[in-house]
């Protein structure tokens, strides 16, 4: 009955109730959106780290000066560059190398699946330690000739045939979403990509006219052995090989993690600001709502309501409003954040990977708790004040 009185009080003042509800909804909306953004950026970054999968990358010197290499891996632009295969033998002599594998890059012209050119990355099935472990999660067989594995955002399906420079390729698998540029990349083995490269040169579509695909690679991926730190291996490699450049992947993505830190901080500050502001406005709104009805609460005292009962009535109202408002806010937040993840990724120009359903549910629950609790906390002030109400004074000859 107490609850129904609280509900009737809420319904009796629809305007006031709507304002309180919108306030809590906004609070919950901000909290859920903010946490989803931050969490998506975090998992985007860690997914990028996972996908790069190597501590060190070695690329032709010119690929680092023109930034083409970073743009391919971090921004999702396309491109390719080559260096002599002999570099691999030289680098492999550096002390402290644990794993070493070459990759071969090519960019497609617009092809059947995709309105935009896609990045093609070829790996050496013998030595690869970054791509195959990942492919295996979606497709646990060795790739056959002309088999390709495509990123999650590409508009093709397993079994489809895609043509790159006249080479018909079968989509053997589609990878899970990473929130990075790898979602628009096509992966294949060395043999297939070299075949495509040769075709691109024959058709005059490759900027490297005289290059022999058998004699070059695009980059080397390195994991160090335990004896030396990546730092040392990078320095050593750069010292002994002038035409190439070794970079630590950590450094390469430090830009990304910096801007992620920046965005997270801004989102955090915004959330805190909305929280404080929302809390203050809620506090005022509850105080007003209760002050306005001081006399009604005094009447409840007159008919025998204890101080605790008054406080509970106020809290019931606040919790009902808070719960409804927060649920609306969270539903709205999910409704905005989930479908527009792609837009967020583009807007922020950063790896962006939505949390899993389970984690999203946990975030939603946390946002619900935060905003209901904020409402309850601010209402508690009014509840306490109303429970201290001096009935005799309020009802004394006031008309």
């Amino acid at each position, binding site marked *: 009955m107490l609850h129904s009185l609280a509900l009737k009080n809420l319904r009796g003042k629809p305007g006031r109730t709507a304002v309180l509800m919108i306030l809590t909804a906004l609070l919950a909306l901000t909290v859920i959106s903010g946490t989803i953004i931050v969490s998506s950026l975090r998992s985007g970054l860690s997914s990028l780290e996972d996908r790069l999968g190597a501590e060190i990358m070695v690329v032709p010197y010119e690929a680092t000066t023109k930034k083409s290499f970073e743009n391919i891996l971090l921004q999702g632009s396309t491109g390719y560059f080559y260096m002599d295969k002999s570099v691999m033998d030289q680098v492999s002599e550096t002390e402290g190398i644990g794993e070493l594998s070459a990759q071969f890059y090519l960019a497609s012209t617009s092809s059947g699946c995709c309105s935009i050119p896609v990045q093609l990355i070829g790996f050496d099935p013998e030595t690869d330690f970054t791509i195959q472990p990942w492919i295996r999660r979606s497709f646990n067989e060795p790739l056959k000739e002309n088999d390709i594995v495509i990123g999650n955002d590409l508009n093709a399906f397993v079994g489809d045939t895609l043509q790159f420079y006249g080479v018909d390729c079968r989509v053997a698998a589609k990878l899970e979403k990473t929130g990075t540029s790898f979602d628009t990349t096509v992966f294949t083995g060395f043999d297939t990509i070299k075949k495509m490269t040769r075709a691109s040169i024959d058709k005059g579509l490759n900027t490297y006219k005289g290059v022999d695909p058998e004699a070059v690679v695009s980059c080397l991926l390195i994991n160090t052995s335990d004896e030396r730190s990546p730092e040392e291996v990078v320095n050593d490699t750069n010292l002994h090989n002038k035409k190439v450049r070794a970079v630590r992947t950590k450094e390469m993505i430090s830009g990304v993690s910096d801007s992620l830190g920046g965005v997270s901080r801004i989102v955090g500050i915004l959330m805190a600001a909305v929280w404080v502001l929302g809390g203050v406005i809620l506090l005022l709104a509850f105080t007003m709502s209760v002050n306005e009805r001081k006399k009604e609460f005094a*009447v409840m005292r007159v*008919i025998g309501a204890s101080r605790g009962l008054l406080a509970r009535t106020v809290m019931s109202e606040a919790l009902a409003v808070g719960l409804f408002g927060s649920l609306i806010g969270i539903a709205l937040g999910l409704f905005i954040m989930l479908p527009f993840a792609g837009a967020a990724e583009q807007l922020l120009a950063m790896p962006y990977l939505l949390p899993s359903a389970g984690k999203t549910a946990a975030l939603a629950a946390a946002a619900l708790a935060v905003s209901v609790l904020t409402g309850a906390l601010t209402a508690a002030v009014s509840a306490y004040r109303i429970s201290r109400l001096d009935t005799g004074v309020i009802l004394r*000859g006031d008309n």
Partner: protein
Amino acid sequence: MVLKGEGIAKEFIREGRGTNRFPAVSDTDIELAPGTLTVLSGRSGSGKTTLLNMLSGLLPPTRGRVLLGEQDLYSLPDRELSRLRNEKIGVIPQGQTAIHSLTVSENILLPCALYGKPDKSAEAYAAKLMEQLDIAPLAGVRPSELSGGELRRMAIARALIRRPEIIFADEPTGDLDDENTAAVFDFLRSTAHEGAAVLVVTHEASAGDYADRQLVMKAGKIDI
């Protein structure tokens, strides 16, 4: 049950130069017996409402005790005092005292709803009270649509719904016409004669016709 005020006094602190203790009610003994309608009158500001509030358990006195039977009201913790007041003491306060989000009949039944659910007999009694007080057609209406007199009668029904043993009324006929005033006093007297102890604060000269006992208050003291 008898309600007794033993040497009760109330002093208010008045804003002004220094601490200015103002005695609204000076040490007063008063007894309200079952079956009696007591009328309390006196000039405005003489302390009638203050006395009534103290006796009804709403305002702790500065000194003295209020006993309901053997029970010292103000020695009880708030929860128990509130429940006791809910069951045994009905108050018709001065002024308009509706809960605006509830209908007239919900307002009347609210005392039964604080610590439980109104049962069929409470609902039937509410209907009967509304009938007697001539507000039956207004049962489902919201207080904002009622006249002052109708609101007052609603407050009377609300004070009586728990069939309290002690009833306090502060100017219950303030905004009623003569006919309604007579009806209310009739009603309060018959309630008293059914066994309740009733104290009515009023300026109404005609109240004397209904009173079993008349008290006059002057500057915080009861003049007999």
